[in-house]
């Protein structure tokens, strides 16, 4: 089977897995907080397994923690789903949960001497706080009806794949990121169902997994901090729709503004990363 067909099949299977859980959740509203997050969790697990093979537990290779994050962060996704009723449990649970999730992947970099202890702790705390902020700010987008939220997150996955491919020089992280976008993108056709939303849990978990992939690329591949910051700001962009000033605008404008930012800034980021990549060597390497 060709590489392209194989990748398409992986994306299709992962998105389908997510779609099944979301459809179930759409019918069983009382279980939706859990099923919404479970869709992303299972979709990403299927995706990871097909791209990277079976991960170990506990992982010898720290980059495998991305897979376990999809499963271990499931309670956080569920907590995001019930957040309106238990606001402080969610906020503190997310903070402690994210801090706990970020320690194991980066400890080996301190052990191998790539990061000093101080640098490592600073990175872990800083990245965990940034992730917590992203997850808590964007999770309410999951309650928005229509295709805007899944579409914008799917687009973010595409931009992220481009930056990871040419910037981090990791095809697997790029594929995982792009296909995570495709998993959330499954919410676009489902958005035409009456009353369908992908749910807070799905958005929270998807954002956490994007951060997990980007921080893995920062620590273990060649993603720069600047590139990570750009991706992070792009991930925050859909949350602009929740600002009171934006709420007063028409739905079309509320969708078009973040879309334009992601397209322009994201497109520029991919373009600049591609140029830097091509300038590195005269002979093109196409993987």
């Amino acid at each position, binding site marked *: 089977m060709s590489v392209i067909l194989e990748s398409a099949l992986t994306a299709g299977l992962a998105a389908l897995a997510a779609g099944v859980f979301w459809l179930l959740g759409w019918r069983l509203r009382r279980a939706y907080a859990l099923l919404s997050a479970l869709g992303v969790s299972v979709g990403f697990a299927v995706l990871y397994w097909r791209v*990277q093979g079976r991960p170990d537990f506990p992982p010898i290779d720290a980059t495998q923690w991305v897979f376990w994050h999809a499963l271990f962060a499931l309670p956080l996704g569920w907590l995001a789903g019930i957040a309106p009723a238990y606001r402080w449990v969610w906020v503190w649970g997310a903070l402690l949960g994210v801090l706990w999730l970020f320690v194991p992947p980066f400890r080996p970099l301190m052990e191998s001497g790539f990061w000093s202890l101080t640098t490592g702790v600073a990175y872990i705390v800083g990245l965990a706080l940034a992730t917590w902020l992203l997850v808590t700010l964007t999770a309410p987008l999951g309650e928005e009806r229509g295709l805007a939220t899944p579409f914008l997150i799917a687009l973010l996955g595409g931009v992220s794949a481009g930056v990871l491919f040419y910037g981090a*020089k990791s095809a697997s992280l790029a594929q995982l990121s792009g296909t995570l976008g495709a998993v959330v993108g499954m919410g676009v056709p489902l958005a035409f169902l009456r009353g369908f939303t992908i749910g807070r849990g799905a958005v929270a978990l998807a954002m956490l997994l994007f951060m997990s992939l980007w921080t893995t690329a920062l620590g273990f591949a060649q993603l720069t901090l600047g590139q990570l910051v750009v991706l992070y700001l792009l991930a925050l962009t859909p949350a602009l729709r929740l600002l009171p000033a934006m709420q007063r605008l028409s739905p079309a404008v509320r969708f078009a503004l973040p879309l334009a930012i992601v397209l322009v800034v994201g497109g520029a980021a991919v373009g600049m990363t591609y140029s830097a990549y091509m300038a590195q060597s005269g002979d093109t390497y196409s993987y």
Partner: protein
Amino acid sequence: MRKQTRWMAYISIVAMLVGSWQPVQAQPVTYRIDPVHSFIIFRVKHLNTGFAYGRFNSFSGTIVVDEKNPANSSIELEIDANSIDTGNGQRDDHLRSPDFFNTRQFPKITFKSTRVRKINDTTVEVQGDLTMRGVTRSITARVTYTGKGRNQRGQEIIGFETTFTIRRSQFNINYGLNGGLADEVRVTFAVEGIRQ
């Protein structure tokens, strides 16, 4: 006086015997791997079509050779995974990434022999632990003696060569197995050691 002379003669004979005995008891000889005249090259099939070749430029290690009792021989090797070189900088960066060697977490590839068995006068079978990307697997390779001599500095040198095949999936290097890059990687290690 005559008694003293006789004793001195005995001592001299014993000393001569001990002295002449020692070279017969060949001690294992340690050789330091000469990285300039040693090569670690590998090949892997790309897109089920052609073979891509690469090498590691930086490595070190020792070989202990016991000619009388080859079972006492051994080899230890440490390879700098970051020194991978396939003739294309972008591909080398990709190979260093988590897709393949994840060199930030696993900067070294090591091999330590666990058993050496003589096959014939010029060949031994070496079994040992290869550690790559944090995974240790036992591998077996037939090593051929390629020669012995002296270098320009007058140091004794010795040469060996081996070719063996590993499955990269056994070391958790799984990226691109579905049609991109083959699982089997053929490794050739041609080594020259300098006597220590």
